[in-house]
């Protein structure tokens, strides 16, 4: 079918003003669509899916576009379903500390609104002004504060999901504790939009902490064993860090610090507790480690800057840019960061890497010539796998994604993923090939 016919047909299911041709001239990330449809209601989302499902059309789902380079090997599908028109807060019950919001709402907009009530969603994704809540949940994005507050699976209490057949499924609910039926929320978190379009998200909120500070500990000798011994000691204490993130020298420099391995340790609590914990770090830190304590707004500014480190993927520069997420057993994060340093030399790349020593997740950003990026990613994956972990690619141009597997090897239980996909989206209309093993 030619594009104009598809457009005509779509007009029969959603208002004409929701549909437009995709004018994008060049897009190096793929995951595009010939026609852009931006529904304004859940019913419209449902109609588009129903139409596509019945007519063998494929859909790529988008909202803020920050994850364009994340997963997928196809340049374009028939329809680019954009949730950017489906925005706004549906319900905020201040006393219950729960919030229901439409999926296309920008994450920052929600946080700004909640700040007026001294509340927040305790997730810290990258590029929050562009990223939408739906995208953050669908891609299971998280930041260093996951150590203190958990990730999307700990925060989401309810979803509305439009299934490929157009029906709307509610999972979870609006209460913070719920074991009625299967915990279907979990199925959609991190599902990369492959089994349904999340239309509404209900989250539990937290109070904005009364006080916060950030302790930056710089290790001039670059001795990772020394860092490890400090971290083990610190983690065995009763302190309650919100982040315990190791920054490689390049990231530390980019954030205005010395070009040295640096630990970023956040505390968020009542003021007396925060200061008490800062003092504790000062007491147990190795003598040669430099320490600075950044208080209140300065701490949040640091993190704001931090959340804008990753390549965003909308304006390709000269270098190939990539982000790899590595998951390993907590303390093995140090080995990954060290490996990243070695790869930087071996492949002549600029590599910015950080990782959470209390949760085991690293982000490695690579910048350089395409073949070097490719080689380094492959080597990093082999290394992570040898540690019992994994490496998945969160951001990479399409041509390279077609060469290097985004998700790595299929696990032995892949048949369950396949079974779930087949049950919910038998015609493979949603984000085809975007997820692990070609799901």
């Amino acid at each position, binding site marked *: 079918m030619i594009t104009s016919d598809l457009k005509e047909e779509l007009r029969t299911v959603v208002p004409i003003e929701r549909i437009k041709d995709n004018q994008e001239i060049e897009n190096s990330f793929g995951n595009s669509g010939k026609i852009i449809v931006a529904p304004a209601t859940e019913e419209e989302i449902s109609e588009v899916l129903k139409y596509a*499902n019945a007519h063998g059309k494929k859909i790529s789902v988008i909202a803020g576009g920050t994850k364009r380079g994340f997963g997928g090997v196809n340049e374009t599908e028939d329809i680019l379903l954009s949730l950017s028109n489906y925005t706004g807060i549906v319900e905020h019950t201040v006393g219950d500390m729960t919030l229901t919001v439409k999926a296309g709402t920008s994450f920052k907009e929600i946080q700004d609104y909640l700040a007026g009530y001294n509340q927040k969603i305790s997730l810290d994704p990258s590029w929050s002004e562009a990223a939408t809540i739906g995208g953050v949940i669908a891609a299971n994005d998280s930041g260093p504060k996951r150590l203190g507050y958990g990730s999307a699976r700990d925060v989401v209490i309810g979803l509305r999901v439009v299934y490929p057949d157009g029906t709307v499924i509610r999972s979870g609910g*609006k209460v913070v504790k719920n074991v009625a039926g299967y915990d279907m929320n979990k199925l959609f978190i991190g599902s990369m939009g492959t089994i349904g379009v999340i239309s509404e998200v209900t989250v539990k909120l937290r109070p904005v902490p009364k006080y916060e500070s950030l302790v930056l500990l710089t290790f001039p000798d670059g001795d990772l064993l020394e860092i490890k011994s400090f971290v083990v000691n610190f983690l065995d204490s009763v302190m309650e860090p919100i982040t315990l993130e190791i920054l490689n020298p390049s990231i530390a420099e980019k954030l205005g610090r010395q070009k040295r391995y640096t630990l970023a340790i956040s505390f968020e609590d009542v003021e007396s507790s925060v200061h008490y914990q800062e003092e504790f770090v000062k007491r147990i830190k190795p003598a040669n480690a430099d320490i600075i304590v950044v208080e209140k707004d300065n701490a949040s500014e640091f993190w704001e800057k931090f959340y804008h480190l990753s390549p965003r993927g909308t304006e390709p520069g000269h270098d190939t840019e990539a982000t790899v997420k590595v998951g390993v*057993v907590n303390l093995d994060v140090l080995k990954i960061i060290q490996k990243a340093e070695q790869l930087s030399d071996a492949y002549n790349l600029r590599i910015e890497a950080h990782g959470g020593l209390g949760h085991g997740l690293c982000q490695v950003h690579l910048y350089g010539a395409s073949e070097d990026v490719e080689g380094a990613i492959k080597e990093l994956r082999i290394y992570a796998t040898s540690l019992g972990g994994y490496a998945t690619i969160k951001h990479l141009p399409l041509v390279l994604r077609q060469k290097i597997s985004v998700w790595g090897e299929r696990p032995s239980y892949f048949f369950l993923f396949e079974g779930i996909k087949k049950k919910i989206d038998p015609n493979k209309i949603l984000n085809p090939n975007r997820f692990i093993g070609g799901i």
Partner: protein
Amino acid sequence: MAKKGLQTSDKDIINLAKIVGEKAILYKQPDLVAYDCDGFTIHKHLPKCVVFPNSTEEVAEIVKYCDANQLPFLARGAGTGLSGGAIPLNGEVIISLVKMKRLISVDLENRRAVVEPGFVNLKLTNSIANKGYYYAPDPSSQYACTIGGNVAENAGGAHCLKYGVTTNHILGLEVVMPNGEIVEISTNGVADTPGYDLLGLLTGSEGTLGIVTKITVRILKNPEAKQTVLAYFDKVADGSQAVSDIISSGIVPAALEMMDKTAIEGVEAAAFPVGHPKDIEALLLIEVDGISAGIEEQINQILEVCKKRNVREVKVAGSEEERGRWWANRKTGFGAMGAISPDYLVQDGVIPRSKLPEVLARINQISEESGLRISNIFHAGDGNLHPLVLFDARIPGETEKALEAGSACLQVCADVGGTITGEHGVGIEKREEMRFVFTDREILAQTDIREVFNPKNLLNAGKLFPSPGRCAEVKKELKEALKTS
């Protein structure tokens, strides 16, 4: 256990005994009676037999045998479940996991431990307490319940307000699938492994998707300090309002429990009385933990809130011993109802916190209409109510009346935007009440998932979901709708 030599000609029992050994199978009627129900005692059914495997491989062999021979089967831990999830409705082969109770490994540096499913919840905390660590989920039955059962039910507890329920602490699982295949998901505890979140799906699936044979859990460092407050209120409304005020003041208490007048009467008549006044309408048990330097400020704030809400008396536990007594009184609250009533039925609804006064008033109304006393012991901080319907099973018709009253309480929870179970699970008990919160299409979406894992539905069939009739119809309707679209 069986004496030497099997005294049966049943080929399935003989074959299962070959897998686990003759001493690890029960099949005689008198032995099976103990397995005809779990903590939900209203519904009973005898199993075909009970086998006691000692390893993952034995579990897999048993499951393969059942699968090949069309024998229904289910897994059972300590049998403390309150919704009937381990009741052999279809005369199942019960796979008891009590022999698989080893603590396999503890890795304090990476804050993880690996246990077998039969390992008792509290034992984990006890095993690591000397190093200053603990396992957070603390259901009231933690002295007996197993971590395998906790995973199946996604168990909660008093302290999950701050620390989350079981699912928030599960890092990895080894699972025997309903066809006997052994699957390992993030057993080394690595987070966010690529793919759909099977850990999340399996946790709370009430033993219908697979049998968990190894569990990797997160362990936490004990908080530096904790303080516990007890507050007595003359009016329930003041107590509920205090709950809301505490939460909205920005404090995240470790626990925030409430008991009403009837509940207080029960716990004071039972084994762990603490001398609560009998004429108050509600008490709150509030615990704050964390860095010692910050605790006092939060406690002061809590005391202020209580005073503002007309508290009659409020006190901070003066010693660990006193705190322990307060908690023992609370944690044995359900059983304590036995002191004031021959029988009781525990319910488990969840409501948005702000609806507490309204819902308590409506539960009171249900109590009046049914003529049955209903006491309330609950996790007020997260809106998880436990109405306890007191009744006497010896009086004809009263059991049914109690079940109806319990169901009516759940309807109230659903009506105000809540749900029918917060931590006890659906099991047999609340199958029909699933319709209070889910449409048939939504239930179908869930049974579709079950079909992926458990296509023959031999594993723990008949649990969790309402009778299938209507679901099948929906499926048909959907198919037809798709054809015509």
